[in-house]
């Protein structure tokens, strides 16, 4: 009985630990969607298609292949000419003041929406490790 109780508590403890240390992707996607609608959709639009020549698309966007650059753009801002899906863009996006967890959530949302899919799950720690 004692053994069983101990085992039970260790089991519960482990579940708690795994829940609190790593945010499940589903939850990250939901939080990411909220951030996206608040901070990104105004320009990139809710369907991620952007406005040709003005706001680059995120849906099926070749810019997202470089995930570190994607994270860096959101974290520190992005300025100057870029080419996205063969179209030229030359504007400015400034840092939105999001914290590392919010950035990981919104990147997960972007990487898994509108026909995009990614095997990599972005965590708060990965965002924290990206330097300017």
């Amino acid at each position, binding site marked *: 009985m004692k053994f069983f109780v101990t085992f039970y508590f260790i089991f519960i403890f482990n579940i708690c630990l795994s829940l609190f240390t790593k945010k499940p992707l589903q939850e990250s996607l939901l939080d990411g969607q909220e951030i996206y609608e608040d901070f990104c959709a105004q320009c990139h639009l809710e369907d991620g298609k952007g406005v040709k020549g003005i706001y680059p698309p995120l849906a099926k966007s070749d810019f997202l292949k470089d995930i570190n650059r994607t994270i860096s753009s959101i974290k520190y*801002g992005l300025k100057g000419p870029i080419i996205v899906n063969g179209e030229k863009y030359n504007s*400015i996006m400034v840092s*939105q003041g999001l914290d590392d967890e919010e950035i990981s959530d919104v990147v997960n949302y972007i990487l898994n929406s509108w026909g995009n899919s990614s095997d990599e799950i972005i965590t708060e720690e990965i965002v924290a490790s990206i330097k300017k």
Partner: protein
Amino acid sequence: MKKKIFAPLLISILCLTSCISQENPPEIKTPDQSKYTTETIVDGIEIPWGMDFINENELLVTEKKGILYRVSNGKKTEVSGLPEVYQRGQGGLMDVALHPDFNKNKTIYLTIGVHLEGEKGGNTALYCAKLNENSLSNLKLLYKGQPNTKKGQHWGSRIVFDQNNHLYFTIGDRGNRDVNPQDISRDGGKVYRLNLDGSIPKDNPFIAKENARKAIYSYGHRNPQGMVFDKRTKKIWANEHGPRGGDEINIIKRGKNYGWPIITYGINYSGTMITDKTKMDGMEQPLYFWVPSIAPSGMAFSTSNIYPKWKNSLFVGSLKFEYLERLEIKNEKVIKREKVLESIGRVRNVKEGPDGYLYVAVEGNGILKIIPN
């Protein structure tokens, strides 16, 4: 039978497509752009939100992420002593305005996104401070929007003065459109009016109303980011970011309700409806609304004789389409629209300087002066 259906069908299709694609008149024209050039007054500023002129050679410029610059003969120096700026989404360090009696008292006003205390997040605050050479002193909080929120949208903000020493400033709906703009006991979605010392004028419209935020001058706004005092008519003009197809110009009147989100000409950016109402008793109609939305920023009248053909025109920056818009106004109606400085970049602000020239703030660039050739 077939023919009978065909004509009405064709007409309704034509109507529908024209409704969707049509621009709200007057149609914007793009005249010869070689009649004027620009001179860079200062560069290297990401988002030059606000500016005001100390004299013909010196101005103050805010950078949204939280830097106040003093620009003297093209050289910019950081001014120290700002409160901690809460930079999030569309908020940060926003407008700056010199006290009408600045030459005597060296006082300036700033609108800033701040956290201060209380709930997580932030809201727009109005401060005044004394400007010594390159530092601020006597920093005083005059007003702070409540409550804080982590929402990124709609902080406003512009500051202007009327001829009777009132200060007006704006706070947007703070991303809570169904709660804030129509409720005068709450902040957000309002134009505010204060005395220059921050006290509330005795003739403010809601001064006697229980629970009202007494600084409110008008309400039902979404996100006013352009405002100017028209010296000729003594009226306050403002533009605001609407939803898709709902950007507006309004003349701000005491105690009036500008309708957001009960009435609007716009729809959600996703294409869904907000309301089917564009008019309602007790709510103001816009003087003009833009279809398509241009994302209007700062606003100014040209009153000098430097650009004879532009005298008394209204100028509005377009963030989205990256040009400066000139609007000819007759009897408070827009009769002509023109692109000035096509493809210049995201225009954040426009102001008439003490020398009568128009100064334009462009994102990723700085402040440009428009010079006729």
